């Protein structure tokens, strides 16, 4: 793996909690403004992957749309959480390696730092992120195959692909904490001078830590902390269960060996903060989701009639793009 220290991940995608709040706020505000202006928030994606803002609403509809209620920041969060879990389900259904699941999840999270869920449906983005992660990790799956496997329109994935890359600012190499966990466990073997019977305990520790990382990855912590710290937080939790080593002593030894600028108290503070994120994690109830989905529908100005129209229009544009295999070149 390329070096995390000089990576775009470290330079551009680790934020302070304030910055993160600002980003969510900004995306939410923008969508709300769009709703006020146009009566709908959803961006149109054409078959060529380009985006357009909604057409201003016609007068006779204005009344109906003015009743549309935008999602608040917490509801947006719920929506993301719901689809992050869906993303995992999709990856498991395809038996994708863990690495792909982790990469897709980070892509999804980063995408919604730039956009509101009211602007791009998380279902489409989730699938596109899985598709993109497969491409990047060289586990190529065609969009068609992916779409078929979960009965979704694969053209949607292709339409969104470029927008996803663009929203990720083409920073596509991401660092998940799973490898860091492995690295630290190897290091712990030496640290403990592990004998055979201890090796099994370390394996159990690693397995528990992996499950902890899974939990951490569904929170906002990956936007706030480097993967190494996320891994250590997971390992500390796992260690409380397995009691393999004196964790604070281990942390001190890492800091000394790495000549780190961090003090032990700073590091522990970070790990505590990560734990808090995991404790605070809330999964929406069915009732929450029903409510949110209803709101979203109103934001998108969907009626069954509109849906049909949209469907028709999309298929039409697909057809035209197929007729000219390479597209009408630059225009």
């Amino acid at each position: 793996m390329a070096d995390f220290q000089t990576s775009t991940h470290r330079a551009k995608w680790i934020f302070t909690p304030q910055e993160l709040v600002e980003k969510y706020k900004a995306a939410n505000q923008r969508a709300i403004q769009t709703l006020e202006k146009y009566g709908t928030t959803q961006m149109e994606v054409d078959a060529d992957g380009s985006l357009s803002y909604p057409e201003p609403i016609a007068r006779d509809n204005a009344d109906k749309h003015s009743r549309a209620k935008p999602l608040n920041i917490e509801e947006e969060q719920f929506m993301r959480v719901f689809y992050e879990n869906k993303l995992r389900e999709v990856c498991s259904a395809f038996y994708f390696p863990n690495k792909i699941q982790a990469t897709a999840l980070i892509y999804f999270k980063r995408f919604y730092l730039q956009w509101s869920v009211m602007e791009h449906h998380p279902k489409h983005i989730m699938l596109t992120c899985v598709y993109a992660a497969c491409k990047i990790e060289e586990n190529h799956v065609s969009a068609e195959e992916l779409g078929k496997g979960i009965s979704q329109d694969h053209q949607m994935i292709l339409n969104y692909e470029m927008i996803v890359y663009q929203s990720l600012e083409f920073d596509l190499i991401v660092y998940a904490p799973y490898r860091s966990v492995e690295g630290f466990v190897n290091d712990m073997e030496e640290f403990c001078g592990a004998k055979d019977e201890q090796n099994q305990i370390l394996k159990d520790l690693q397995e528990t830590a992996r499950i902890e990382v899974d939990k951490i990855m569904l929170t906002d912590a990956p936007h706030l902390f480097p993967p190494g710290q996320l891994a250590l937080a997971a390992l500390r939790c796992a260690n409380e269960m397995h009691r393999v080593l004196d964790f604070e002593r281990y942390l001190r030894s890492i800091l000394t060996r790495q000549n780190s600028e961090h003090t032990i108290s700073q590091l522990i503070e970070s790990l505590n903060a990560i734990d808090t994120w995991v404790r605070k994690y809330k999964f929406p109830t069915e009732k929450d989701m029903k409510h949110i989905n209803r709101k979203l529908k109103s934001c998108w100005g969907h009626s069954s009639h509109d849906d049909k129209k949209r469907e028709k229009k999309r298929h039409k544009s697909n057809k035209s793009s197929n007729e000219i295999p390479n597209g009408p070149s630059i225009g």
Partner: protein
Amino acid sequence: MGDGNNTSGRGIAANNTTSSSNSEKPEWLQQYNLLGKIGEGTYGLVFLARIKSQTNRGKCIAIKKFKQSKDGDGVSPTAIREIMLLREITHENVVKLVNVHINHADMSLYLAFDYAEYDLYEIIRHHRDKVNHAINQYTVKSLLWQLLNGLNYLHSNWIIHRDLKPSNILVMGDGDEQGVVKIADFGLARIYQAPLKPLSENGVVVTIWYRAPELLLGAKHYTSAVDMWAVGCIFAELLTLKPLFQGAEAKSTPNPFQLDQLDKIFKILGHPTLEKWPTLGNLPHWQSDSQHIQGHKYDNAGLHSVVHLSLKSHAFDLLSKMLEYDPRKRITAAQALEHEYFRIEPLPGRNALVPSQPGEKIVNYPTRPVDQNTDFEGTTSIQQSQPVSSGNAVAGNMGGAHAGRNGSVNRPMPAPMQRMPQGMMAYNFPAQAGVAGGMNPGGIPMQRNIAAQAHQQQQLRRKDPGMNMPGYPPQQKSRRL
């Protein structure tokens, strides 16, 4: 990255409105003057363009246009992979990605790079076919050192290039980076951890001449040692002007066994043995021995005579360590940079094209041919018609170009030079006295730049319309860059 306002995904709508009209250039393209096509390959086309904007006005950019991948396959994986790697790396000896442009109409990607006027393929070809003499030692050593320096950076960032060959090693033309090597074309590059598939599965054809023996024998896993083998082949080619192992490629099946290529290698390096290369027995093609390569008998190694080097020379020692059969014993880029060859005269320098000896002839390499007849997908009218080679000499750009040059005179040595062995400066002093008139008022670094200026003046003169290089074909068959 991306077009300024497009970066975060905002402003795409605006972009879309321009792309709705086929007759107009897309917005992003309007910031360039398109000069013509300079290359073509399996991945797509490369165009040369000049920046219009005030900052960097007149600066040349190479725009690599990727073909759309198979229908229904979305954005080109090669393009995406190249971008993703280049986003993470910055090094003086690695090509610089300046921008990524998107054409929504056909979902193709355009990568804008700093333009490099030369590449090793052209430099070698020019010496072989036009000037009929070897590349001078200083240039060979400087090119090799910088290539290794860039490669060491890549390898220490866990990136294997996998497709090093002379045409992928670029050299900068006029300007403050004159004679600096840039490793290019990362379409096949891999991060170690990523699952590495056989090349055939990527559906990519790469030159077999620079392919390491372990790959030819069917090794499934790439290591950075494959790049070092390629460097060895390139080193030999710089010395002799001929590809070292010029095997005929077998093309029958998707990933055929390249018997002739191995035969060419064994003929020069001798038969590999389990003694010298213990893991040889595990390699599929050696094991199966379907074409009886195990039984072939080859004469003794004759590498030194092929490359005309004394067995005792440092150059030969380094070359033979790069062409070590066992990838685990093969010299690494970091070790090669420390090799004695780079500590003896002539010492390597930053501007590889300026010879260190005062009497040495300066070779004017041909500038890259520009095909002005190929337009940008049939939608763009090419406005500039003067040859690119007039580069900095275009009126109105003179001021800027000269300021840049003067500014570079006292520039501190760049990082790679600091890695250079001690003593180089002392050596260059007398060497350039001839050029600079024996004065050395401002410290050593200036010396080479004075020489550089002299060189540049020559080049400018050469580029004068009246003094065009005679006999050099203005157009040539496009090839993979």
